[in-house]
């Protein structure tokens, strides 16, 4: 994947950071229990399980039961963190997330690993392109897509400190670093990584690093882009969105997810109801992906800095055309 992120340093995969952060939290908080559905070595919940075997439950290959058990444990005062691949825990556990977590507003943390298409060769059945839309559809759920290992650590801590359901997407590949150290983080608060007056690029996950690269390329042509890391998709930082619209007059949203129902759709709703401006979107256009190497898939399906760069130029030309009219 390195060639997709020229000039960027790579850190750990966000799933690795998740396992470590959870283990560290587990030292101080007996109430944390961790459940996995036979993917603990992949989701990295095994990192917690090795440290605290008494509080770790591998329920086997049963996502529905995984979620239901977590609801029961949460209603008995535990703080369950449950993991599987995003494609499995969200899709196969969705009714249970609704009935046993969202509806009763229980304190369950759901971590879907191997999010997006950057999982690669395993193919579309294991890739998750709709998890953010589905998780956002569950009332009371907080939904986060961290961009790198440092932000993941902050998100895991925030998830523990928040009383209520949280969904966090983690990724399989090593992720390009966005932060040098664990950043300040709060649900509903975006991070402005670079300021600019010509347009704003709002992104999360792997697309944040891509947005930063695109902003550098745009700057070479005299275009100054603001870059906002919107790790928290729900609740959305509507102030940051409105400021982006008012200050820069054009917005690009980029994510490793279906265009319909993800970050882009949520930002568009916020823009439409605050300060409408031209928008462009980078994401998967109503399609599943396929098997292949992660970098090749990100290129084929248009999820690199180049597509962000092109979207930025498109949105600027639309704004200019609108102004000339």
């Amino acid at each position, binding site marked *: 994947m390195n060639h997709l992120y020229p000039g960027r340093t790579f850190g750990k995969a966000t799933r690795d950071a998740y396992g470590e952060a959870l283990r560290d939290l587990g030292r101080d908080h007996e109430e944390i229990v961790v459940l996995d559905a036979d993917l603990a070595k992949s989701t990295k919940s095994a990192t917690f399980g090795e440290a605290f075997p008494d509080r770790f439950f591998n329920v086997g290959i049963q996502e529905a039961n995984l979620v239901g058990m977590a609801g029961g444990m949460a209603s008995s005062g535990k703080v*369950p963190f449950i993991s599987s691949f995003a494609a499995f825990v969200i899709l196969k556990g969705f009714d249970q997330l609704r009935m046993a977590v969202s509806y009763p507003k229980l304190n369950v943390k759901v971590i879907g690993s191997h999010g997006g298409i950057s999982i690669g060769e395993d193919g579309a059945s294991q890739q998750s392109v709709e998890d953010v839309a589905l998780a956002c559809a569950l009332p009371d759920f907080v939904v986060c897509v961290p961009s790198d290992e440092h932000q993941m650590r902050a998100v895991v801590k925030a998830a523990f400190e928040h009383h209520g359901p949280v969904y966090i997407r983690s990724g399989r590949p090593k992720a390009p670093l966005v932060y040098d150290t664990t950043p300040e983080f709060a649900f509903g608060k975006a991070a402005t990584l670079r300021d600019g007056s010509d347009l704003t690029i709002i992104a999360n996950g792997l697309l944040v690093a891509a947005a930063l690269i695109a902003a550098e390329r745009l700057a070479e042509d005299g275009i100054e882009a603001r870059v906002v890391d919107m790790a928290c998709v729900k609740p959305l930082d509507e102030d940051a969105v409105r400021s982006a619209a008012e200050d820069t007059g054009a917005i690009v949203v980029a994510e490793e997810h279906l265009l319909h129902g993800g970050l882009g759709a949520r930002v568009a709703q916020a823009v439409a109801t605050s300060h409408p401006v031209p928008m462009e979107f980078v994401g998967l256009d109503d399609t599943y992906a396929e098997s292949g190497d992660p970098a090749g898939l990100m290129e084929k399906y248009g999820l690199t800095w180049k597509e962000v760069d092109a979207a930025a130029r498109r949105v600027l030309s639309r704004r200019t055309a609108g102004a000339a009219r």
Partner: protein
Amino acid sequence: MARSAVPAAAPDVAALRDRARIIRRHIVEMLHEAASGHPGGSLSAVEVVTALYFGGILRHDPENPEWPERDRFVLSKGHGVPVQYAALAMAGYFPVDELRTLRKIDSRLQGHPVLGTAPGIEASTGSLGQGLSIGLGMALAARLDDMDSRVFVLLGDGECQEGQVWEAAMAAGHHRPANLIAIVDYNKFQLDGAIEDIIGLEPLAAKWESMGWKTREIDGHDMQQVVDALEWSTQAGEPVCIIAHTVKGKGVSFMEGDNAYHGVAPSNEELPRALSELERGDPEEENARALGSADVLDRAEASIDASAESNGKGGGR
């Protein structure tokens, strides 16, 4: 029963039968008032629920529903919730009069159970197949905390067609909580017809046993058998499944075994017929009353009469 670590002396089975009769009256009354709901599967579960709440089985505290060391009752067959609401009201969780608000706007008594609404409800159910997983999570949480709370989960028979039931059964068979009791209300019918005509469950006990559960089959309307089985279940030391053979619509002659009453409330004409069949009359029950075991029942009965009189005057808490 009141909060206590040890069940009281042997329950008065005759008094329990009378309570069951009053719970049935509440069920038909509240469903008539709601003009919707599921009488068949509520009535079939009456003895099990009555024995749990009033037979010294469930350790709970209506004054403090959140008591951490309480036993839990999870109604996985959520459409049967009228029987639980009736029991909770009679136990003192909320006024009996509130039963009239079932299924109405602003009521705490939702059409299917919702955690956080009516006190005493332990899980949100109604999408079938989920309660045993929730109960297993509760049982394991109690074990982690060295609490001896027991978790009773009441499943429907048709519900046992859901795959998640067997996920949970298999997981419980592995983790072997000694405090998890499943009860199947085996009334032989589901919405679309007879279970054996749709997807049969037999051999049902063998299925549970193959997953590592102890089982016992009982007549789910024989109060003595129900009480004995529930008492046995708490001493078993491993996951237990009680298969309660029941009759859908039990206690109301024209509903018994007639699956039309799966999800149809009694009409204005049917209500008095149903209530008259649920009048006191069994000599054994009369005897129990004569022994003074039922002053609470008198109050409950009075409140039924009061609610009957005020029928149609609207809901609201």
